[in-house]
């Protein structure tokens, strides 16, 4: 059974992002998908995905910004882990990336930052590339988690409840 469809109706861009995310829920990648209209034309999303934890995202319809705020909480700025995460984001637009991974800056622009200890990912969607931006962002999030699985398991143990065994 498909996850319950969100009720957000915030115009074409918001609907496009919601529909793109909903498609993942419909395929069973996400569980517990919710889309809730928020202030100033924003949409807030919640879904259970990696490590069985609730992940939050927002889409600012006015600015065309899809954000994963506090995707990784408790991250020290300029720490090796923060640098490793940032590096993956920054190299995503490199020409050396395989085409299916590369983010075309004309369609979406990626950025990451640590604020108050929270590492966040933002995607500025250019034009009507909402499906594209959602798809690239989710694949990137998956790979960000893989960096942590391979090299920083203690962070996932402490912050995401990964088994210490």
């Amino acid at each position, binding site marked *: 059974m498909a996850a319950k469809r969100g009720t957000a109706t915030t115009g074409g861009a918001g609907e496009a992002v919601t529909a793109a995310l909903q498609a993942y829920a419909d395929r069973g990648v996400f569980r517990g998908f919710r889309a809730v209209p928020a202030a100033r034309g924003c949409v807030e999303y919640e879904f259970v995905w*990696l490590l069985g934890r609730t992940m939050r995202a927002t889409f600012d319809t006015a600015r065309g910004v899809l954000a994963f705020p506090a995707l990784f909480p408790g991250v020290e700025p300029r720490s090796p882990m923060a640098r490793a995460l940032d590096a993956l984001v920054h190299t995503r637009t490199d020409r050396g990336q*395989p085409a299916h991974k590369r983010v075309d800056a004309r369609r979406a622009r990626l950025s990451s930052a640590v604020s108050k200890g929270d590492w966040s990912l933002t995607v500025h969607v250019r034009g009507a590339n909402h499906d594209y931006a959602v798809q690239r962002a*989710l694949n990137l999030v998956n*790979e960000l988690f*893989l960096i*942590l699985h*391979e090299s920083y*398991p203690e962070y996932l143990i402490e912050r995401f409840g990964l088994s210490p*065994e």
Partner: protein
Amino acid sequence: MTKRFVRTPDTSRRRFLKRAVAGAGATAAAALTGTGTAASGETLATGQDHVNPIAPIGVPAEFAASASADPKTFDFPMTGAQVFARACKEEGVAALFTCPGNYPVIHAIASAGIPAFGGRHEGSMAHAADAFIRVTGELAVTSGTEGPGFTDMICAIACANAARTPLLVLASNMTIGMEDTEAGIQLAYQQPTTEGMKKYGKRLIVPRRVHEYAGYAFRQLRSGVPRPVHLDFPAEVASATFKSATELDYFHDKSRYRTESRPHPSSKDIAAALDLLRKAERPIIVSSNGVFYAKAWDALKRFAEKAQIPVVESGAMKGQFSDASPLSANAAPGALASADVVVLVGQHCMPTVGEFAFGPDARYIRIDQSAEDIGRNIPIDVGIVSCELAALEALADATPRITHDAWLAEIAAARKKFEDQNLENYKIGLSYGDAVHPAVIAKELGDFLYRGALPKEQTSVASGGFGIARYVRRELRGFRPGQVMNGAYQYGAIGPDVGYAVGVAAAVQLGVGPQAAYKGHPVICTTGDAGFGYTCMEIDTMGKYKLPVVVIVYNNNAWGTWTGATQDPRALPIHLFQENLRYDKLAEALGGHGEYVTRPAAFRPALERAYQVAAREGRPAVINCQGKKEFWDRAKFPPGSLGKIEPGVMSYYH
């Protein structure tokens, strides 16, 4: 003890105590090389003024006599135990791993000519049986006495259950007639105890049904998705006597109580799978347990090569697809997230979403014998209910030749990046000169096994440990089926490794299944100091059965969990051992060869010496690698404690 005393002028109690501690290892080593310490003048005090020669460690003559004794062919009249042992023989059970207990049954099985290994702890021997099955694909039996022997096996049964191993667990001694009375000792309700960790279980009650229940057991073990089967034999059943077949129910040949027929895929399902695969740009096959037990590795190779689909392995054993192939993605974790269609074949222990590295856009084809399980955890796009062999053959026959050049290039680039990272870890590890870093052990073990004088497909490995495993697995490779036994696997027990090594070594010694071409060669076991402590007495078992195992112990004086207690000084000692323990000396005291390695440069020569002892003398060896627990501290000793990405060489959860 001999009565011939030898008087030596400088004998004293102090001298004896000094020798007893310091000389134990040399004593053992000398004994097994034929130069017992008695011959070299070592003596043992027996009283105030007398000493006698220390008898060398040796294998009793009964072992040679046992090996030359003719097996028995059981026929009527037979006891219940003999009826069951005969069924085991006819079913091709390849080995028994046990401790004393359940005597009529284990004696009958051993007498029937099924190779029998008796060890020091029922749990270890049950682990050995699990490992034996995981590297041969053949059936093995484990047994213990009803109460403590049986409960000693619980962890191993749970491990085998998680690993989906067709392990036959037997136990009992006590009688139904005295049930509930607490008369005597060791009575236990067995079947409820194994609830949730078996495919089928039964306490045999009616003696005449003993063969019928052998049929129940082997039907379960030989079909579908395997898991342990647990039978317990009260004395009334084991010791019952049957004069003829008429006194037994369902006394049939195995061809009458089970079938070799297997589910085959529908053409519609195969077409659906191929349709998805034809559209895929970056497909990948995950080969797991089911491919091994169905002996489907040739079909897997044919399908993968024809459709140019990379293969990555998961599961309780590895090597079904050779890492020498350019299609192997086992050591290419950085590419896995790119896969757009994933074919899960025989993946019985299913990960949940996110536990495998594949990205959110991946579509899934799942091939499994159990329709009940398809769709669990990871939603499917195509489900194929089939024997893995039949499905892979059908796919190989039907697939057009396809090329995925760009995808294979991405796999190759990821593989190189992974290997470069391993090399970088090794260089960092070498720079820590005052102890042996796990990256050094991992890299040099890989060099020794795969890039040196040994044929790379020769050596089977029982891969275990906790922190050390995170490094060693990155270097272990499989080049033929059954080459790597994937340690504790999903149950995550930390202590079975030396027990596992008994099973792997027994399989290689006997040349069972895919080990046949490598019969008699030494095997490697990797473990940590925590794990070694659980099952290290099985070094004796290896010694007495001449199982040539090189056990590499990463000794960092601590459980791998210590880092989680650094902020709790009162709790921290829970995670620590005495420092610089001499596991090598323990091996020597048990008749093995010992090496103590405290510097990186000393590891490879020690490995070569230990391997030579194992190969030449058929003797186990322990290489005690002295590390330090602080190596898990990334800030002080990068790269620190490592994690893992699954599937592939690093995987062990699924």
